[in-house]
């Protein structure tokens, strides 16, 4: 009989319950260790493992978005981005150097020696080629998963292309490969043209392929910008300016074309061309005789003088104040009519008229024409010029402002003021942006003609147009004449200030500002040649550029001649 509860031998060896407990402990040791380890991993190594899993399952991909385009008014692309690739080489993973070099040399049309030179210079990774075009990209991408492609890395990048080369580049500006606008329109409208580039998480398959899902679908929100610039007009302006640069070698040259009725800028060119640095808005200068138009228009409009008045030339030596003498060397007349003052560009005449008008009145007209304030065209770096307050003007200052000295203006201010005269005295808001095309297809029209104010009376403006027409027909602006068309304009040859103070006799700013056809002005054109190497004048250097620009523009826009009695032959 066996009695329950009794032990057969040593209680330590044969106690089953104890044995079971020990066995259980051994059995549980492994799971407990695993649980402990899992707890440790979950609690303390959480981040490390999450990132490992992320890397194993997901790919972080850059959202591939192209920058918006910039067009001219007729939809010609002036700047757009294209997707290119760069090729990097990771030497460590290249299996057969000779084969790889031969292949790359063949595809990239690059001499093997050049590849080997880059190869030898780098320790491990180097970029072999950038801005790889699609045709070459396809050939490279086709070997990426083969042994030949091991160690090659293709990464996407963007290139900003300007189909018309350097044309209008000073207005368009530049952007970098990261889609950031750096200057000009690219910078001013960076928000509209670009979109934040964020990374998206995409599931990846074996071999690194991305598995598409709906969350990867892009929401494009970039806009396209349409300028008021007409690329063909811009081409003619740039060509004419280039010819002038070749002829007289100025330090700087500027040409602007505006539509007087709307204030639209049709073309604006600068020399030398710098990305986003349009001198049409940023350059400030003393205008010289082109400003006489403003002084005389102000005097006529305020009633200080009448168009039929004649001005005494004081023996062609006018002592404005003690020791300050203004001379006219270009004529020997004792009296000049107002049209003659403009035709002969008389400083005495313009100065006397300015003094007759008075500082306060002249100042208020100058301000009303838009000088001394920014035009709100919103171009980066636009200057407001400098018109000192009238209460600081002496008689000499007032006279000097009458013939365009002692004040600083910008080309856009002057052309807008001339456009106001062309537009029967109405000053229009100049503008450079025609419309914005948003990603949802909505068009935001920005090019609405905005009337700022009636600066001078319609009758004054019409009288001034006739005076300016006489300058081109009989005066200093003869070289701006265009067969079949009535042209009105004024030349300017201003001495430049020296660093020491005073004016340099050999350093000039020569200019011409005019409108055509006078009967119904379609274009106001301003040409400025800053400090030409060749000694020259507004009438000889700038007026012919007006003609070179206006002629093709009249043809382009189909503007009929307004002279009734001209000879076709």
């Amino acid at each position, binding site marked *: 009989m066996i009695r329950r509860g009794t032990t057969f031998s040593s209680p330590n060896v044969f106690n089953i319950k104890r044995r079971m407990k020990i066995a259980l402990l051994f059995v549980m040791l492994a799971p407990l260790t695993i649980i402990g380890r899992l707890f440790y991993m979950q609690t303390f190594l959480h981040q490390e493992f999450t990132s490992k899993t992320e890397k194993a399952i997901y790919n972080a991909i850059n959202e591939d978005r192209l920058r918006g385009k910039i067009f001219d008014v007729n939809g010609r692309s002036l700047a757009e981005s294209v*997707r290119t690739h760069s090729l990097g080489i990771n030497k460590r993973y290249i299996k057969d150097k000779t084969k790889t070099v031969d292949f790359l040399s063949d595809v990239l049309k690059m001499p093997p020696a050049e590849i080997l030179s880059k190869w030898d210079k780098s320790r491990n990774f180097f970029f072999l080629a950038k801005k790889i075009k699609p045709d070459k990209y396809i050939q490279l991408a086709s070997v990426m998963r083969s042994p030949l492609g091991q160690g090659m890395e293709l990464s996407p990048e963007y290139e900003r292309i300007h189909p018309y080369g350097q*044309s209008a580049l000073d207005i368009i500006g530049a952007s970098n490969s990261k889609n950031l606008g750096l200057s000009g329109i690219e910078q001013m409208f960076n928000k509209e043209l670009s979109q934040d580039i964020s990374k998206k998480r995409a599931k990846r398959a074996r071999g690194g392929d991305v*598995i598409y899902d709906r969350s990867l679908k892009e929401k494009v929100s970039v806009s396209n910008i349409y300028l008021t610039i007409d690329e063909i007009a811009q081409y003619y302006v740039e060509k004419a300016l280039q010819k002038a640069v070749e002829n007289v070698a100025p330090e700087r040259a500027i040409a602007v074309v505006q539509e007087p009725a709307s204030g639209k800028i049709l073309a604006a060119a600068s020399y030398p061309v710098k990305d986003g640095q349009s001198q049409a808005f940023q350059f400030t200068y003393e205008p010289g005789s082109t400003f006489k138009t403003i002084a005389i228009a102000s005097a006529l409009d305020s009633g200080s003088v009448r168009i039929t008045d004649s001005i005494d030339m004081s023996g062609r030596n006018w002592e404005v104040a003690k020791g300050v003498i203004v001379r006219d060397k270009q004529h020997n007349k004792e009296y000049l009519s107002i049209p003659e003052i403009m035709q002969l560009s008389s400083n005495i005449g313009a100065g006397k008229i300015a003094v007759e008008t008075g500082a306060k009145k002249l100042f208020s007209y100058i301000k009303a024409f838009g000088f001394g304030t920014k035009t709100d065209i919103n171009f980066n770096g636009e200057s407001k010029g400098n018109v000192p307050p009238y209460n600081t003007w002496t008689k000499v200052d007032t006279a000097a402002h009458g013939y365009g000295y002692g004040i600083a203006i910008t080309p856009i201010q002057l052309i807008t003021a001339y456009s106001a005269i062309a537009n029967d005295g109405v000053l229009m808001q100049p503008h450079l942006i025609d419309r914005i095309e948003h990603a949802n297809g909505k068009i935001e029209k920005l090019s609405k003609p905005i009337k700022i104010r009636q600066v001078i009376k319609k009758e004054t403006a019409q009288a001034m147009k006739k005076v300016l027409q006489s300058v081109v027909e009989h005066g200093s602006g003869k070289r701006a004449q265009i067969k079949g068309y009535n042209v009105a304009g004024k030349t300017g040859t201003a001495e430049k200030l020296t660093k020491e103070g005073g004016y340099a006799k050999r350093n000039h700013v020569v200019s011409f500002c005019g409108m055509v056809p006078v009967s119904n002005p379609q274009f106001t054109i301003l040409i400025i040649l800053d400090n030409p190497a060749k000694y020259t004048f507004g009438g000889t250097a700038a007026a012919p550029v007006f003609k070179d620009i206006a002629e093709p523009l009249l043809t382009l826009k*189909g503007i009929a001649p307004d002279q009734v009695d001209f000879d076709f032959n």
Partner: protein
Amino acid sequence: MTKRLILLFVLCLWAFMVTALHIAISRSGRAITRLQQEVSVKEARNQYLRLEIARLSSPDTVTQFATQKLGMIPAKPYEVILLDKPK
């Protein structure tokens, strides 16, 4: 017992279908990605061709071709005769 077996079978079938569906979605996703890459490369090629057209039809190229190759000269504005559009 039979009911349980049926339930188990249905569960297995459902799990199998879900897995199969996921595999199919992944395969399609990969195919879509590949096609998208092809599309973007072709779009880029197309864009380059359009840009080439723009360059070739730019006023500078056309003027050079017309004046140098064809011996043409630009018309003066008064030489252009404008006809009224018929009403």
